[in-house]
């Protein structure tokens, strides 16, 4: 009973939304790590797309999956060597 009354007045969001949020984040990282091919394929596809417009230094390029408390982010650091002249 005490528990139920406390729940009526509680200010925290229900704990299940924390469970869902935390799982979502942790699985982003788990899945990326387990399929180690994923980051490699992603890297190559990004190089292919960008190279149409700019010349990049593939050696120095760096892609990482980072996360904060609230979200996961894909961080790419891609040094540009030269910008191509895009045809009109």
């Amino acid at each position, binding site marked *: 009973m005490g528990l139920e009354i406390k729940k009526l007045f509680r200010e925290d969001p229900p704990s*299940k*939304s924390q*469970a*869902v949020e*935390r*799982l979502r984040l*942790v699985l982003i990282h*788990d*899945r990326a790590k387990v399929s180690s091919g994923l980051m490699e394929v992603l890297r190559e596809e990004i190089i292919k797309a960008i190279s149409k417009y700019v010349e990049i230094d593939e050696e120095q390029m760096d892609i990482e999956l980072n996360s904060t408390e609230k979200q996961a982010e894909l961080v790419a650091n891609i040094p540009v060597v030269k910008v191509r002249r895009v045809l009109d």
Partner: protein
Amino acid sequence: MAGRVIVVTSGKGGVGKTTTVANIGTGLALRKKKVVMIDADIGLRNLDVVMGLENRIVFDIIDAAEKVCRLRQALIKDKRFDNLFLLPAAQTRNKDAISLKQMKELVDELKAEFDYVIIDCPAGIEHGFDNAISVATEAIIVTNPEVSAVRDADRIIGLLQAKEIYEPMLVLNRLRPDMIKNGDMMDVDDINDILAINLLGIIPDDEEIIISTNKGEPAILNHHSKAGEAFRNIVARIEGESVPFMSINAEPGIFGRFWKMLSGK
């Protein structure tokens, strides 16, 4: 026609794999199917006690694999059903005691004779797990509505894909309607969204499961058990029937019951 070989797995221990195997095996036997359950958890034999067959074991899976006895001699016939058998795990050896080749030979021999071969997979993702999933063509993943169990289930889905089992079925065990209602437990939709695999069944948390394990009688035989009902639905779905999912609603509290009485609903 060769029988179906289904592995029941979870990654995390203690989520209800063995109980699920015992109930599904018994449920299929109730439907007159010829069923054998393999306890692949070598060194941690459990399925025998859940089935109430612990006093009948003479030979085990290692004896059969090493040809100390014939496979037939290692099979324990169930107390209740003539068409239900258990191949017990060895208790004194460890999970490396059986090779993949031996496991394949055993399962090939069994599936030629039985309609269903249900494998109780060890927890973890080591050798014993690998053997169990490598010989199966279908998989049932058991999980609880807890972050750790769901995370492990996700990992298992990936590992099953690597063994070309692309459509595992999910059993969501130990749901607590009261906690779901209060927003303190992930519900079926939350977990379905996250794992995105076919749902085979949802099982409410039920004290009858502990009582049935105490007695060594699977809950599926108990018509007063909610979990037993959930398992009967699961077995029907395995057999290709379409059965609506049980609704996981909290029983009305004291005010709800009072209101029901007043309103006559």
